[in-house]
């Protein structure tokens, strides 16, 4: 009741000088409008930005086996064959921060089609989810299926570079290329991804079910137990006229023999598991989740080191976050400056108003206003000015961002926190910059004030 009356009195006092009130608020209106518009546009841009960076692989996490050491000799990262395809399934199932996970095995083999041959830079054996992890859509056809993975199906999808090199203008869909010693039917063509951040051609790739790559393309070689890591195995001597591999001391079993009597594989391993976190912010929790899960699955004692390593795209992440923090800081500076300017304007006019209404203050004190009543009245006036300025500013800012979206076609995104903060900030500007004038008013001596001309 009381507060409501104070507000009504303040509103009445402001209405007595509408023009001045509006002009006073202009600083706050413009400040808040600018901040809201910038926030909405900035938010839109940064969402677009982070989506773009995410497609570069910023959300990707690579789980690789750790190093193995025998007799004091460390074989380096990836030499400890500890990751299994079941690990990939478990990660996907048990880590809520992980959006997608795919096991990866590699191979190296010559690709042949109709008299042309080519050595693809990358041969990746994986599951269909790999494309999801890499955020990599297909141009034509479809990806192989999980059923294909289970059945070691002889299918693959190829990148644009492979299409250029082997097929030229021909449509590769449905054709069979020979990879090493296996014929793989092409079921899909990947969209162009261009060079990676490190400059290698990402389109120079053949992707097939990991079972196919592991057991058919490179599985025939003696190095099968060391997974797809590198391994020069599986190279068809016919297609390798200039052998560069090291001389084998013992005769390797022929492919026929290997197929008849596969080497005893203790458990199937993959060379790495590629996963994608739900978003860039979730990377750290995702790493923790995966670490816990894999430690448990691999039965590693708490004091023992892990037999795997998880790497994220730190560089890309840093770019992303640094761009966003830069944006945020710039906005903050702009907001702070404009609000201080607006606040000084409010203070200025409130001081003028206090001087001008000295007699009114004296009168109010004479009829029974205590100094805290006067303080409250002027404070409420200032807060009311700032608050209404803030609300008008929010409307104007939203209008401005809508115009930008409509005419300049920039993406914008409404920011609820920005609106809430604007309201709070404009009210606090009113309190901070309205306090001194209000305090001055409340300190007036009623006798002097009544006599003031």
């Amino acid at each position, binding site marked *: 009741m009381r507060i409501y009356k104070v507000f009504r009195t303040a509103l009445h006092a402001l209405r007595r000088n509408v023009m001045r009130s509006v002009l006073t608020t202009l600083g706050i209106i413009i400040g808040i409008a600018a901040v809201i518009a910038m926030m909405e546009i900035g938010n839109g841009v940064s969402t677009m930005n982070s989506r773009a960076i995410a497609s570069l692989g910023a959300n990707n996490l690579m789980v690789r086996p750790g190093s193995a050491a025998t007799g004091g000799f460390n074989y380096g990262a990836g030499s400890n064959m500890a990751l299994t395809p079941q690990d990939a399934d478990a990660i996907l199932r048990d880590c809520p921060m992980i959006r997608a996970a795919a096991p990866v095995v590699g191979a190296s083999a010559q690709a042949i089609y109709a008299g042309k041959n080519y050595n693809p830079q990358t041969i990746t054996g994986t599951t269909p989810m790999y494309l999801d992890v890499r955020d990599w859509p297909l141009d034509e056809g479809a990806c192989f299926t999980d059923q294909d993975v289970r059945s070691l199906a002889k299918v693959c999808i190829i990148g644009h570079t492979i299409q250029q090199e082997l097929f030229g203008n021909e449509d590769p869909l449905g054709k069979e290329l020979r990879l090493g010693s296996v014929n793989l039917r092409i079921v899909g063509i990947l969209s162009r991804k261009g060079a990676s951040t490190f400059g290698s051609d990402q389109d120079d790739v053949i992707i097939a079910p990991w079972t196919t790559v592991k057991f058919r393309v490179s599985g025939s070689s003696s190095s099968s137990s060391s997974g797809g890591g590198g391994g020069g195995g599986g190279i068809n001597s016919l297609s390798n006229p200039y052998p560069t591999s090291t001389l084998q001391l013992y005769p390797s079993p022929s492919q026929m023999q290997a197929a008849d009597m596969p080497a005893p594989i203790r458990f199937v391993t993959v060379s790495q598991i590629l996963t994608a976190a739900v978003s860039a912010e979730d990377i750290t929790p995702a790493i923790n989740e995966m670490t816990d899960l894999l430690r448990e699955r691999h039965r590693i004692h708490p004091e023992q080191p892990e037999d795997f390593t998880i790497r994220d795209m730190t560089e890309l992440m840093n770019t992303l976050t640094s761009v966003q923090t830069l944006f945020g800081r710039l906005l903050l500076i702009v907001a702070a400056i404009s609000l201080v300017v607006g606040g000084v304007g409010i203070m200025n006019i409130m001081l003028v108003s206090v001087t001008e209404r000295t007699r009114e203050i004296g009168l109010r004190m004479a009829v*029974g206003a205590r100094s805290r009543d006067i303080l409250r009245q002027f404070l409420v006036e200032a807060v009311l000015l700032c608050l209404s300025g803030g609300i008008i500013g929010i409307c104007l800012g939203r209008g401005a961002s809508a115009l930008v979206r409509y005419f300049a076609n920039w993406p914008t995104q409404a920011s609820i926190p920005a609106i809430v903060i604007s309201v709070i900030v404009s009210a606090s500007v009113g309190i901070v910059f309205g306090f001194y004038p209000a305090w001055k008013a409340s300190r007036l001596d009623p006798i002097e004030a009544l006599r003031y001309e």
Partner: protein
Amino acid sequence: MNPPPLPAEKSGVELIRLHNLCKTYFLGEVDVPVLKGVSLRVDRGELVALMGASGSGKSTLMNILGGLDRATSGEYWLDGDEITALSADDRAMIRNRKIGFVFQSFNLLPRTSALDNVMMPLAYTAQGLTDREARQRATELLVRVGLGDRLHHEPSQLSGGQQQRVAIARSLVNYPPLLFADEPTGNLDSRTSEEILRMFQKLNEEEGITIILVTHDANVAHHAKRTIRIRDGLIEAGAYTNEMVGV
């Protein structure tokens, strides 16, 4: 029009009693004594004129009587309470409830209707009236001062006499037992002055409100039943304290 109920009377007929009241201004190293031991008494229902030349201490005495200023020493009993020692906030409450002010320059809020001007002191009254009650009370008072048809006029649309009548209505809105009028006719022509002074007389006679007219104009003082003259910080005549001197 029924007279408004006055606040419950505390005791006796005595409303104001000053005993040996002194006020000294300390200006740097020089002490300027303005009131040098004022004793006087005003009873309920009196209409008193307080007269004095400028520099006589009249304004200072009025400020102290009105609760706007504090005496340096002495006692001031108002309506049964000693108020010299009260804090600024408590004095504000006393002013709100027990004293009405009418000023020479009216002091109405600009661009504010007569009704809102009259209701203004109610905003600082502790016991809250509803909007409806406040409006009703202000309307009644404006009708009583003869402005029933000007409720929503702003001061700029009213003549000087009308403005002063709004100010009188405002001073009465809390039904104070004591009304102070500081040169109430100083800005008015003689005919309007006469009207306003009659109104004070009427309020005094019909409703028993104690009124102190502060003036330097003998014509104004003639309307009062008693005149207190102050000169050089001492009461010269009309203190009405003969029986109190020995107290």
